[in-house]
């Protein structure tokens, strides 16, 4: 029965996410994430999912559509609206050897489970030696006119908690490989899925069951020689667009995708700065004490002798994400802002 469903899915008519790829074999970021979940659920029966409306409804963004039919309500658990308990249950079941993957409908609602995340999940292994293989997933980020409570970038809060790996992929393949790595990791991992990317970006995504992308490793998405743009998440796509425009004007920007914001891959960042001598740190998290602040400080501290210009940061101000298109566009760094920043840096 289960096997038949998988085969039907592979043919494109059933539940299996891989059946939802395009005819050319491309997967969106959303489908790539669903593939990672499906494959890890198939591989390891200790893996289970819990969250709000992930069962019959298939999740707020339909990432888990079809999962309950394949894996049953024991492994695809609809919870009450109780985020502290979602996290706490994930922790308790992980202490007993299960490998929970908890879904938040939006990353904004992680703050409703903040205490269990930062006080228990982040600190328990250091205190006690008990591994907590827990993954918390949630759609983060703005640019979709979802306003203050459905657009947050919470990665600095949780990177600062100390004991949680915080992953923010930008491409479908990275999302799939990193989520599989997170589920197999024995430490707490937060996996932030940028909702602007979900259905916008697609590519051919590896199908090997053990395709993994290492946590804590950045990736150079575009080679360049004049300026390094250090970024992650949806801003990677803005940076690539800006780099393409700049190339037409004879400027060469390198785009470094952090992929994981904690732990930070300092080596890849510093190697890029050694090459270009100019750094634009671009982030969708707030400018004040955001991920970009840490990256900029690291460059200033460890690559000072390579710099030909001051490190520049581009990130939103510390205000709630506004709704109206004119306001949100003014809030988020845009392609033209990135181009202007690169031009300023190049002029040094």
């Amino acid at each position, binding site marked *: 029965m289960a096997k038949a469903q998988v085969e039907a899915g592979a043919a494109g008519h059933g539940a299996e996410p891989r059946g939802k790829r395009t005819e050319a074999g491309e997967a969106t970021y959303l489908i790539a994430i669903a593939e990672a979940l499906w494959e890890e659920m198939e591989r390891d029966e200790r893996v289970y999912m819990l969250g709000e409306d992930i069962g019959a409804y298939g999740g707020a963004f339909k990432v888990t559509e079809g999962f309950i039919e394949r894996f049953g309500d024991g492994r695809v658990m609809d919870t009450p609206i109780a985020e502290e308990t979602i996290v706490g249950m994930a*922790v308790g079941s992980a202490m007993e050897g299960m490998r929970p993957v908890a879904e938040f409908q939006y990353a904004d609602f992680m703050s409703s489970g903040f205490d*269990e995340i930062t006080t228990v999940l982040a600190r328990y292994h250091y205190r006690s030696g008990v591994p907590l293989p827990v993954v918390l997933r949630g759609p983060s980020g703005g640019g979709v006119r979802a306003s203050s409570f459905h657009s947050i970038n919470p990665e600095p809060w949780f990177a600062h908690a100390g004991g949680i790996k915080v992953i923010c992929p930008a491409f479908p393949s990275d999302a799939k490989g990193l989520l599989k790595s997170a589920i197999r990791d024995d430490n707490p991992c937060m996996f932030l899925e940028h909702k602007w990317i979900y259905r916008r970006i697609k590519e051919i995504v590896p199908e090997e069951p053990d395709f993994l992308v290492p946590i804590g490793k950045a990736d150079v998405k575009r080679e360049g020689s004049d300026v390094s743009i250090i970024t992650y998440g949806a801003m990677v796509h803005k940076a690539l667009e800006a780099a393409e425009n700049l190339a037409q004007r004879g400027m060469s920007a390198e785009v470094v995708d952090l992929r994981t914001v904690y732990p930070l891959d300092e080596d890849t960042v510093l190697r890029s700065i050694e090459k270009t001598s100019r750094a634009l740190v671009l982030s969708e998290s707030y400018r004040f004490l955001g991920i970009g602040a840490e990256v900029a400080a690291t460059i200033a501290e460890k690559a000072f002798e390579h710099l030909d210009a001051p490190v520049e940061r581009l990130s939103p101000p510390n205000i709630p994400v506004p709704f109206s298109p004119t306001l949100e566009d003014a809030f988020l760094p845009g392609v033209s802002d990135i181009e202007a920043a690169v031009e300023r840096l190049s002029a040094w």
Partner: protein
Amino acid sequence: MTTELRQTDQGRPLPDDRLKHVLYLLRLCRYFDERMEALYRQGRLPGAIYSGRGQEGTHVGVASALEPDDSLFPTHRDLSAQLTKGLDLNRVMAQYWGRIDGYLRGRDGNSHVGDWFGHRTFAVISHLPIAYPVACGAALAYKRRGDKRVAMAICGDGSTSNGRWHEAINTSSIHRLPVVWVVNNNQYAYSTPNTLEFGVPTIAERAAAYGIPGVRVDGANVLEVYAAAKEAVDRARSDGGPTLIESVSLRWRGHAGHDPAKYMPRELLEDHMANKDPVKNFETWMLAEGIVTAGDVEEIQKRVEGEFEAGFEFAQSSPYPEPGDVTKGLWVEDGYWTSEPGRGGGTEAS
């Protein structure tokens, strides 16, 4: 019904040797509590202490109903429950002095102790109701796998005002999880009395709101507490779902060592100390039943004092953690927690 303290005729609910063990535990916990407070006042104990005096009947009673594989999610005030679960006094005392042989290798102190891989106790977290959802998760694992195991969580009356308490009990009811919820109602949350924590007469009656059984027992009677806990544990183990137990006691000391508890009416405290002392009550019953003699009690006390002295010596001679290890053990892959720790930290504090 739940507004009344349950009164049952327990007879002898356990074999005599186990009853003697209960008396030993009660005596041990009382003596430990008194001696540690004295050391704290003399400035010889670093950190904080959270006395459980007067509440040993609750903590020893509920934990006595657990099997070794069952898990316990305790608080800072119920070290008695962890000692009942079997924690080694030497290692507990090494933890108080921040030494490497403490269960948490000096990463946490005082009664914020736990021994998950050994005696299945959760390392206490100060935000007390925080462990309630975690207990749900352990119980969920047992249920999913068909393990005949039970999780038990303890909190105080103050925790019942917090959202986690409600969330966890509600969730355990929905999924009929094998969990026992214990509230040590010692009548004060720090300085705040019951009347400023909840608007219903008792905590136990709240069980009705979750569709689970609730029982209110006298924490001064360890056998009543044990009987209620055993019933709840058996229910959970046989897929009967969760139970809420409210055990009523009084916190004889302040919230922590620094708190003189002047807000507590003197006559209330005197009444409890004179008439509702769980250690004295049980000892009197054991003597009356002829299960122990006065000589036996004296011997138990000698054993307790000897163990305390040995624990003290063990703790003082155990080295501090090495300062160079401070960042180790954050991630599983650095191997700190699966290898022997460095023992070169010396025994002299800076």
